[in-house]
């Protein structure tokens, strides 16, 4: 699985997250801006008929791609999920799967075979009807090494996928299309969460004829069957989507077009929002406190607890964090409510690993309370003296720095004098993957799939040492529970096993379980039915605008 931080919105700069397009993209963009100064001349003005419903957005960086096989970041997915249809998708506000291009689906009891029945009225924006073969083609394209898709690993468990990827087979044997309206997936092993993988844009239907026509340029001439279609994309300037007249749900989308202005940094985006030029905006950190203190603006904000957990990782291989008493002491010593107050409420207290809203979340888990006296006692028992000064690694960022200072304050009260070490994101990622480098560090994890495995397996199993298990935690009981739970398709049983594993992990405390971050955006009063999803960018097909002063 991917380090799930891939999906974090770069607008939410406070997260300890992988900036969605990697750190190279901004550098390349800056270089391009230096080399190609002439390319920034104004785009021709857009004209829409009077009364057209046009949603205006703005973003600093260009959308990396619109090719569903390539995009793996918030900016790309925002538009990809509007241009393309997958077999299933998440509901507007939750992480439950609902039909999209499929009417219904069945999974075999052994969780190895999945059968989907397609709608017959789904059409690409060219007018051609979408058939099962278009889905098969899309997944095969993802598996083809030449495509260089980050989604490849999600479909490797299909029977014949390895042969296909190696060029030994002309098609994937594990994807069958007995008729145009049925598609069957067969896996080499049980995978109860396979359907979730089909809800990623990687598995969206694409027309082979369009890919063949445009070749490497397909990413900017994409054709899909979603509620919107690409109308114009002027690199570095703007992206315009228009409604797909063939969209299969009558009356949707409600908007006529979506215009995203590119090259608008956070502060400018905010000014444009205040001027009414932009309909939905992120809130820059420097404005957050102001927005929350201004009732008129606060009423326009939307917030949602994301499927993520931010934590203070403690390296279980490094002294004195090898001692569980020290790790527990840290959990008692750090005041999470204070951290959340410092964040102006952009988080909820975490009691364990799994965020609320994730299926399998254990509401009964107590976790640790703020109890500095207990922390002092535990540190004393462990023999940690007053000159203990661990290095706290954080991403160099204004908000992270304030959070780190809050933690530094709390730990000073129990006699631990933390040295804050702010570094750039790539070296931080390197450091936590070394067994003997970062003693403690601020980090976070965001779900790829709404399933406990996506947290517990990825972050705490022995085989993830040097990868995502950044605390180098190991407990044989936990590993055994994880192995037992992974293929379990009886959800009740599955979640019970994960619950047991999580309880052991919380007791062993390789993390200080800090908080589950909250995402906030602000929208204009004339924007309706814009709702946030805890795991995906907001969908836009139901959004509508009431009459308002329009510019230009």
């Amino acid at each position, binding site marked *: 699985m991917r380090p799930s931080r891939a999906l974090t919105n770069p607008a939410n700069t406070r997260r300890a997250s992988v900036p969605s397009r990697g750190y190279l993209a901004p550098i390349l963009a800056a270089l391009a801006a230096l080399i190609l100064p002439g390319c920034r001349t104004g785009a021709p003005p857009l004209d829409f008929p009077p009364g057209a419903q046009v949603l205006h957005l703005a973003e600093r960086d260009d959308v990396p791609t619109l090719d569903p096989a390539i995009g793996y970041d918030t900016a790309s997915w925002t538009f990809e999920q509007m241009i393309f249809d997958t077999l299933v998708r998440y509901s507007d506000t939750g992480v439950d799967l609902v039909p999209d291009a499929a009417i219904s689906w069945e999974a075999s009891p052994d969780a190895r075979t999945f059968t989907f029945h397609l709608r017959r009225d789904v059409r690409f924006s060219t007018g051609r009807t979408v058939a099962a073969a278009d889905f098969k083609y899309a997944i095969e394209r993802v598996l083809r090494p030449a495509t260089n898709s980050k989604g490849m690993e999600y479909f490797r468990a299909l029977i014949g996928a390895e042969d296909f990827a190696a060029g030994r087979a002309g098609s994937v044997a594990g994807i069958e299309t007995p008729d145009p309206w049925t598609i069957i997936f067969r896996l080499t092993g049980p995978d109860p969460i396979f359907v979730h993988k089909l809800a990623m844009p990687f598995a969206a239907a694409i027309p082979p004829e369009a890919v063949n026509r445009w070749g490497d340029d397909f990413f900017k001439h994409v054709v899909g069957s979603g509620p919107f279609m690409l109308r114009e994309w002027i690199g570095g300037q703007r992206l315009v989507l228009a409604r797909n007249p063939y969209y299969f749900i009558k009356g949707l989308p409600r908007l006529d077009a979506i215009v995203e202005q590119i090259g608008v940094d956070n502060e400018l985006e905010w000014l444009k929002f205040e001027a009414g030029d932009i309909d939905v905006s992120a809130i820059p*950190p*420097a*404005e*957050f*406190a*102001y927005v929350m*203190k201004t009732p008129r603006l606060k009423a326009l904000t939307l917030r949602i607890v994301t499927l993520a957990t931010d934590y203070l990782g403690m390296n279980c291989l490094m002294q004195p964090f090898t001692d569980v008493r020290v790790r527990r002491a840290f959990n008692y010593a750090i005041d999470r409510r*204070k951290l959340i*107050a*410092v*964040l*102006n*409420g952009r988080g909820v207290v975490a009691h364990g690993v799994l965020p609320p809203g994730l299926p399998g979340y254990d509401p009964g888990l107590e976790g640790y309370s703020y109890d500095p006296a207990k922390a002092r006692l535990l540190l004393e028992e462990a023999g940690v003296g007053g000159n203990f000064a661990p290095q706290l690694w954080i991403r*160099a960022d*204004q*908000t992270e*720095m*304030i959070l*780190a*200072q*809050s933690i*530094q*304050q709390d730990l*000073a*009260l129990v006699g631990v004098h933390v*040295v*804050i070490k*702010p570094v750039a994101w790539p070296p931080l990622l390197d450091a936590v993957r070394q067994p003997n480098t970062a003693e403690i560090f601020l980090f976070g994890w965001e779900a790829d799939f709404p399933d406990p495995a996506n947290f517990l397996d990825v972050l705490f199993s022995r085989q993830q040492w040097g990868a995502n298990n950044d605390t180098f935690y190991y407990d044989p009981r936990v590993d055994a529970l994880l192995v037992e739970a992974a293929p379990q398709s009886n959800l009740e049983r599955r979640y019970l096993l994960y619950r047991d594993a999580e309880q052991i992990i919380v007791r062993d405390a390789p993390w200080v379980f800090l908080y589950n971050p909250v995402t906030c955006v602000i929208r204009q009063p004339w924007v309706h039915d814009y709702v946030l999803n805890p795991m995906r960018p907001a969908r836009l097909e139901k959004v509508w605008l009431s009459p308002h002063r329009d510019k230009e």
Partner: protein
Amino acid sequence: MKLRLNPMEAAGAAMVLSLVVVAAFAPILAPHDPTRAIATTFGDPGAPSRAFPLGTDELGRDVLSRIIYGARISLTVGVAAMVVTMTIGVAIGLLSGFFGGAVDFLLMRFTDVMLTLPALLLAMAFVAVLRPSLLSILLMIGLVSWTGVARVVRAETLTMTQRDFVLAARALGAPPSRLILRHVLPNVTPIIVVMAVLGTSGTLLLDAGLSFLGLGVPPPIPSWGRMIEEATMYFRTAPWLAAFPGIAILYAVLSFNLLGYGYLRRRSRGSALNAP
């Protein structure tokens, strides 16, 4: 001989003295520990009040105490960096001006190269490579701000070496080291003092700039530059949070400038009167 200060100098001296007192007696003067949360204004800085005359910051710390302790860092870095600056600048200036020729050419071209690099940028690069700490910061500030001093000292030295008393000493067979240390240096000292005092405000400002960019003295040690940087997040709801450390920086810079310019004025008037 009676030392008579002009008003500008007197004001500057008093202000510098007040800074030194505040820095030296910070633990006595500060009402609170500058690093601890003594209010619960987390994420919502508290306005100035009777209990906290300058308010409390987003981590519940007393701003007044932080500013008092911040004076220590600012003064230490400002003065120590100035010592480094002066040591390098005066040495290069003296050597260059006294020996002339190839030595002068090499040293001055090196100075020119250093001058082309913006001091703040260079200091940022240095500090980013080394780890930010008190020592590395004052060394780096010193290493990037000596160029002006070197040029001025060189010019003064050049004129000194042409004076008769130097010529006389040379004729008596004094070695270069004695000429430089006993005859040239004492006569360029006044200009060095002026540059040092005026330069302190420059290094102070550079330190604040580095702290503002997150490259200053690491927390929890309070520094004025970092206080302003942290306050930017609350600029619209708690503008005083940025204003008070800003005023502190203004005060410190102004005090050294007044002292320096006052001294310069007295000296230039004096020398004009005493001109042969």
